[in-house]
């Protein structure tokens, strides 16, 4: 009895001249091999970008230096969500109690979890909280940050009445 299996139906792979029944899709495979090699280039670029700091987590481009009068602020430029970071303030002015006002917008994206030396919140208003830090001239204070949301935010600080502005990109 003859079998009723139809040859070369759409679901059946074609039979090649050499007898091999296979759906090879060599044209697609050729294109894919090229895409693969482009992707390897992209992998290399991602690694270079990461080493340079464009993906946050350290690297020369991941931080920025801002100035608020005599105070130098070293802040993150690119950070990652749910990661710890540090904001460093080098006070160039005279010894004493320094007031650091932090923009409220910034706190939508990160929170301040403490500092060295201890920071005291002096007051809070619609513009954001104002911290007080006791420091000598040239001393460096560290604020411990924790990013909580991905996006772009403005770093807006006012140190002893002098403003400093920068942008912070928080990657997901």
């Amino acid at each position: 009895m003859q079998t009723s299996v139809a040859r070369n139906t759409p679901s059946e792979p074609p039979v090649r001249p050499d007898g091999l029944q296979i759906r090879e899709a060599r044209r697609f495979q050729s294109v894919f091999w090229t895409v693969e090699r482009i992707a390897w280039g992209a992998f290399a670029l991602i690694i270079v970008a990461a080493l340079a700091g464009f993906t946050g987590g350290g690297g020369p481009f991941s931080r920025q230096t801002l100035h608020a009068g005599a105070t130098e602020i070293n802040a993150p430029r690119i950070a990652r969500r749910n990661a710890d970071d540090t904001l460093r303030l080098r006070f160039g002015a005279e010894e004493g109690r320094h007031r650091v006002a932090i923009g409220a917008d910034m706190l939508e994206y990160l929170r301040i979890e403490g500092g060295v030396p201890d920071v005291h919140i002096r007051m809070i208003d619609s513009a954001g909280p104002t911290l007080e830090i006791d420091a000598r001239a040239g001393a460096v204070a560290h604020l411990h940050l924790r990013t909580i949301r991905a996006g772009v935010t403005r770093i807006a600080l006012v140190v002893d009445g002098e403003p400093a502005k920068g942008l912070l990109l928080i990657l997901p």
Partner: protein
Amino acid sequence: MDTVIRGLSIYFILLAATRLSGRRTLAQTTPFDLVLILIIAETTQQALLGDDFSITNAVVLIVTLFATDVALSFVKQKAPVAALVFDGAPTVLIADGSIDSVALKRARIDLDEILESARKIHGLERLDQIQHAVMETGGEISIVPKKHPIESPPA
């Protein structure tokens, strides 16, 4: 919501990276593959779970991953192009006894690997005993021996 987005993101990123890296197979693990699997598993675990180690989070994540897998299998069934993109296609490396050196080079396979498969599966000794060799979508090499294998040359 976060868990589902995390799950989907990591699933597709891992899928894309694995496909684009052109890894031949994860079944035949060399020491390099084993190291890679261990590191990727550890890295993705952190990215998938975040700081939330609750059972709820784990359940939502597991369901998301399984559902994605099932959904993709339907997509692949309905759209053959999707199957090609996600799974790839078999590549003929030796056709009717003749070696396709372009395919070997681009698939990064050498003749030693073909001979290894030929020895393991069919106990073949030489390349001229192979009719067809195909790299399957899973990455393994399947061998079709010649009907009447050429005898070993006299010593």
